């Protein structure tokens, strides 16, 4: 997954903010550590950011910082904390999750529009749907992933974690692991997909807003 990056210098110029503000927001955990990507360039080390995510984030910070203190902002911006919910119709209209996934993994009440999807449910659906539409997992396996996420994701209590999908000798399995983690498997294991849940949540949020 190659994504567009923006250098720190360009970011500051584009958004009209200063180094001090950026460092302050980082200190207050308004900008996650993982977004600071270090690369060496001809002028030495430079820091880059995932462009779409950082621009959206700074926009939000600038809009909200008038009314909220930085600490209150940090709670608001935590990737998994949100009270957004969406109905099935909206989901399909805004093309967030494919209809196949929706039909397969929703409760009857959600399907006929009586019940909305909570953010957590949306997150699981979105993650599953992404792997499914990339052709990494089969429809059957997607059910297994939904189950894994439902059972174990809440235990991380909003701490960063990642989903791993592995195959060995035709047997597939899912795992959730705290991120960042170094995992090593025997040679027969193939890691088919690896998803950072915080990143998925971020993508989903930017689609919802």
């Amino acid at each position, binding site marked *: 997954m190659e994504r567009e990056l923006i250098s*720190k210098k360009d970011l500051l*110029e584009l958004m009209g903010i*200063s*180094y001090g503000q*950026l*460092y302050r927001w980082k*200190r207050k955990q308004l900008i996650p550590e993982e977004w600071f990507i270090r690369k060496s360039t001809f*002028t030495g*080390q430079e820091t880059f950011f995932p462009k779409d995510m950082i621009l959206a984030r700074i926009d939000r910070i600038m809009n909200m910082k008038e009314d909220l203190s930085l600490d209150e902002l940090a709670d608001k911006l935590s990737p998994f904390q949100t009270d957004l919910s969406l109905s099935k119709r909206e989901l399909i209209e805004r093309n967030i999750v494919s209809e196949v996934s929706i039909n397969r993994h929703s409760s009857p009440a959600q399907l006929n529009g009586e019940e909305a999807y909570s953010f957590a449910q949306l997150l699981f659906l979105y993650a599953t749907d992404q792997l499914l539409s990339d052709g990494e997992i089969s429809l059957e396996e997607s059910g297994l992933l939904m189950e894994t996420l439902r059972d174990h994701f809440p235990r991380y209590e909003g701490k960063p974690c990642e989903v791993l999908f592995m195959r060995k000798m035709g047997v597939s399995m899912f795992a959730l692991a705290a991120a960042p983690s170094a995992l090593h498997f025997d040679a027969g294991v193939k890691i088919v997909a690896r998803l950072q849940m915080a990143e998925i949540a971020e993508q989903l949020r930017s689609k919802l807003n």
Partner: protein
Amino acid sequence: MAGEIIGDLKMDGIGTAAGGVYKNVALNGVCKVATDIEAQLIDADGRIRVEGHLTANDLDLDGTLDVSGGIRAGTAAIDGVITVKGAYSGQRVRLNGMLTVGEDCEVDVIEGEGAFKIGGLLNAGRIDLKLQGRGAAKEIGGESIRIGKGRTGAWQSIWQRMLPSFAQELIVDLIEGDVIELDHATVKVVRGDRVAIGEGCVIDRVEYRTELRKHPSARIGEEAKTNG
């Protein structure tokens, strides 16, 4: 840690204490804390070692403190030598002595005099430090960064001749901030809004937005004015 407050811990002399959650902690002498410790006030005098994480609203150190984990402290008054393997985060640090942090050090204000060594990023809203020894960090970032040489006594120059690490100099790869004032600094890249490069500086590259002031004795490789 969501434990209930169990009272105070007071220790004098030589000994080892279990960690845990306390209201007030007073350690005097040669003390070791075996696990994570959390308290409202930690007053440490002497030679203290913590095998784990230290969390305190107020930390008052006179002596040496070694922490094998990280520190989270609201305000800290450090008179002596503090060594942290992990990361340091807090609001205010008043330093009179030496601060060593293995990873990042993130505080709102750090001021005082002495020496420091930060393995990662020193990120602070306001940095106001006078160096009595060497200041080293991989990166420094913040709003206002003022780091310069402290006063020099007769003993200082004798020490410096014997031990190079007593040299009053700042060595950093990258400094970024709004207002930056440095002297006796060796830095690869300095980026800021208003930058003052003082006496005895060796800077490979300076990028500034509003103004750059430089001392005649400062050596600057390249300088560039950025717009915005």
